[in-house]
């Protein structure tokens, strides 16, 4: 059989682009977001007292109900948009773009923590422990920030490094236990989250971490020399964004250009094959959790030094769990994680405006966020809803099992 099969015409870049846009991951992600926002709108509308009232006399004036539904959903999502991207009511261009700055501020810790989860995914580990790693990162950075006085530039470096190390050690413990004993990392990281939470709660009760003469569980404010620089006046965007973007760049280099990243991915694809090839699976687990934990620690440090400026027991908020959804939406690639972090940062930023303007509780973000991830995880469902041929070209977390 020397005869070559008729060569298939190579699709041009343009054709591939269009195909990807209409049937690939982009389309799937887009449709998932639309679907999640739609369901969120249903929730907003159904629970709106104005709509319920109009629904009470539906048969006499049905138009009222439709108007109320439109008003309810459009005002909420309108406020969300103007609170996260562009505010058209502002007088100057700078003011109009302030909401976008808010989005970037919210996105900063999400990107860092998302990288923590994404890196672990690539080595086949489920890092549920970003929450604890963020707490440890913020705690260590905070301690350096409010205890020692140093020259500004140096202080920031030391505090950020302390934050990185705090998260890295916390993540590394989970990786090490997994490597040495085979204990499931999900259980270990969940437990470490609770331990970190209690540890911070304890630290805030001791003298070292509290303000003199104050009973409230909050730490002193970090020195100004260590507060992250805010380049845009009037906006909360801080230089921490640059740090997490650098971290994302490093993650990309690590995964696609370095030997260590190659090992991570090999272990993630098939630990047995990796062992046969002479890769130490255990060492890779420890290393990836150490580096990943460090990314979450960095996120915690940036959040503390850039936004909060002092420790409370709620310093990490929901960040650690948001991070999981960020990594999943970003399909555990560094670039995707940055994009997903921006999207969820926008949701958060928009939701605060929405809550202020329309009394729609901010928690709608959690609903939309989790629905997006559920939908992108199950392409057949999205296909069935939109009757489209959408397919996933890359699973959301292929290395940790499950089809899709």
């Amino acid at each position: 059989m020397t005869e070559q099969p008729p060569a298939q015409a190579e699709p041009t870049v343009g054709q591939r682009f269009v195909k990807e846009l209409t049937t690939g991951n982009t389309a799937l992600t887009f449709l998932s977001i639309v679907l999640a926002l739609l369901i969120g709108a249903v929730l907003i509308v159904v629970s709106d007292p104005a709509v319920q009232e109009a629904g009470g006399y539906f048969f006499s004036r049905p138009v009222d109900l439709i108007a109320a539904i439109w008003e309810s959903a459009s005002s909420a999502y309108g406020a969300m948009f103007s609170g996260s991207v562009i505010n058209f009511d502002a007088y100057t261009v700078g003011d109009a773009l302030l909401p976008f700055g808010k989005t970037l501020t919210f996105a900063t810790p999400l990107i860092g923590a998302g990288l923590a989860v994404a890196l672990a995914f690539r080595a086949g580990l489920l890092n549920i422990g970003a929450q604890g790693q963020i707490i440890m990162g913020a705690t260590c950075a905070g301690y350096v920030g409010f205890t020692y006085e140093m020259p500004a530039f140096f202080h920031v470096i030391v505090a950020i490094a302390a934050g990185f190390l705090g998260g890295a050690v916390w993540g590394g413990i989970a990786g090490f236990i997994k490597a040495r004993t085979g204990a499931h990392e999900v259980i270990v990281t969940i437990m470490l989250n609770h331990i970190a939470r209690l540890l911070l709660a304890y630290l805030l009760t001791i003298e070292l971490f509290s303000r003199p003469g104050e009973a409230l569980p909050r730490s002193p404010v970090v020195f100004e020399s260590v507060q992250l620089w805010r380049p845009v006046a009037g906006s909360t965007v801080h230089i921490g964004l640059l740090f997490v973007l650098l971290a994302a760049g490093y993650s990309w280099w690590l995964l696609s250009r370095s030997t260590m990243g190659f090992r991570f991915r090999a272990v993630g694809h098939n630990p047995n094959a990796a062992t046969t090839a002479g890769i130490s699976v255990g060492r890779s687990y420890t290393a990836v959790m150490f580096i990943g934990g460090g990314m979450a620690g960095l996120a915690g440090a940036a959040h503390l030094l850039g936004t909060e400026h002092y420790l409370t027991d709620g310093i990490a908020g929901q960040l650690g769990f948001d991070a999981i959804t960020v990594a999943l939406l970003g399909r555990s690639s560094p670039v995707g994680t940055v994009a997903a972090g921006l999207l969820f940062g926008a949701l958060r930023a928009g939701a605060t405006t929405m809550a202020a303007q329309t009394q729609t509780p901010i928690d709608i973000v959690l609903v939309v966020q989790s629905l997006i991830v559920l939908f992108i995880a199950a392409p057949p469902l999205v296909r069935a809803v939109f009757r489209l041929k959408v397919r996933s070209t890359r699973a959301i977390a292929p290395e940790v099992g499950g089809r899709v």
Partner: protein
Amino acid sequence: MTAPTVDTVVVEPETEQARVLARSWGPSVAFGVFGLVALVFFGILPPNGRETRFGLSTASDAFRFDPIGVPSKIAAIALAIVCLGIAVYAAVLTSRPRRVPLWLPITFGIAFVMSFLSWAVAGNTLSLPVVLKGTIALAVPYIFGALCGMLGERTGVINIAIDGQLLAGAFLSGVVASLASNLWIGLIAAPVAGVLVAWLLAVFSIKYVVNQIIVGVVLNVLVYGVTNFLYGRLLGPMKDTWNAPGKFAEYHVPLLSDIPVAGPVLFKQTVVVYLMYLAVVLVHIALFRTRWGLRVRAVGEHPEAADTAGIRVNVVRFRNVLLGGAVAGLGGAYFTLGSSGVFSKEMTAGAGFIALAAMIMGRWTPVGAVFAALLFGFADNLQSMLGIMRFGIPSELMQMAPYLLTIFAVAGLVGRIRPPASNGQPYIKS
């Protein structure tokens, strides 16, 4: 061709059995270390001559007793010696080699806790009924949650969404009871909420084969989001309509509640707690004494074999996840209808994760999970008892105990813990 002879058959050192036996020195060592800790820190080091009094009844009990006073040091030492005895017995069993039965760690835990109390309460009176009742109150949702997790994991489906199912149950039971002004209708609604969440878990993890842990984590976030949102919209602003369910009164079981100490603790409870007793017994019997349970465990241990034997693996899994959801939802009702009488935001406070830990510590058995949950409930409860115990361990650090213990347990330091073999693996029929 030569027939295989007896001496070519080599016992492979890496068989599952060999590995389990090789690892199982853990419990004896751990018992020994903890026993020594008890002996030295609770018994030998503290000063002599103090008395620990245990109150055995409260003012409302049928039979009232005077508090029993025991010399703190002697009691602590005696109980520590019991602990060490158990450690030795475990070591003997291991050297036979035989399995360490479940009652051994349970007895050890009770002896260790009593030794600890003899020391910590020295010079004071500790009311046992109050302590035990507080412990049970905290353990109830853990037990329900652990049963939920167990029903799923015994078929190979990991359920990280226990917390979400508990919260959903708490929410819906509170809202329905409030709207209907009837606690019983609310109680019926609770499992429905749990089943709804479980249904999502089942659909996504079994039908769409999404990673079970990911689905679980995301579902938790979804339930937090929905309940917080509706709380902000309806339950908070319109409290009287939406969030005034009230709670069940305690029902005193005739005769049984008059038993000294145990009676008031176990049988002066709300209906939700009695349902918990029932659930534990039913799940235990169903899992280990019925054909249904054998099938369930077969699916969890070896789905391919179960399939070959004619069991529809994914149907069994789907049903069990739903059943687990119903149990967890019912447990959620305890938060609203059983203890606080109102719903508040994220009121489960991570109970579902402690339930997961209790299930692991209890080695995927109902009885083991109950005692693990009680131990965790006891550690939580210590915070409220700190007033009478003047010792220098901050409550936050005490509360870490369950989490640390769980890490030790899954790391194999406290005995080899083995989950069902197919845990977390989707079953795709080829």
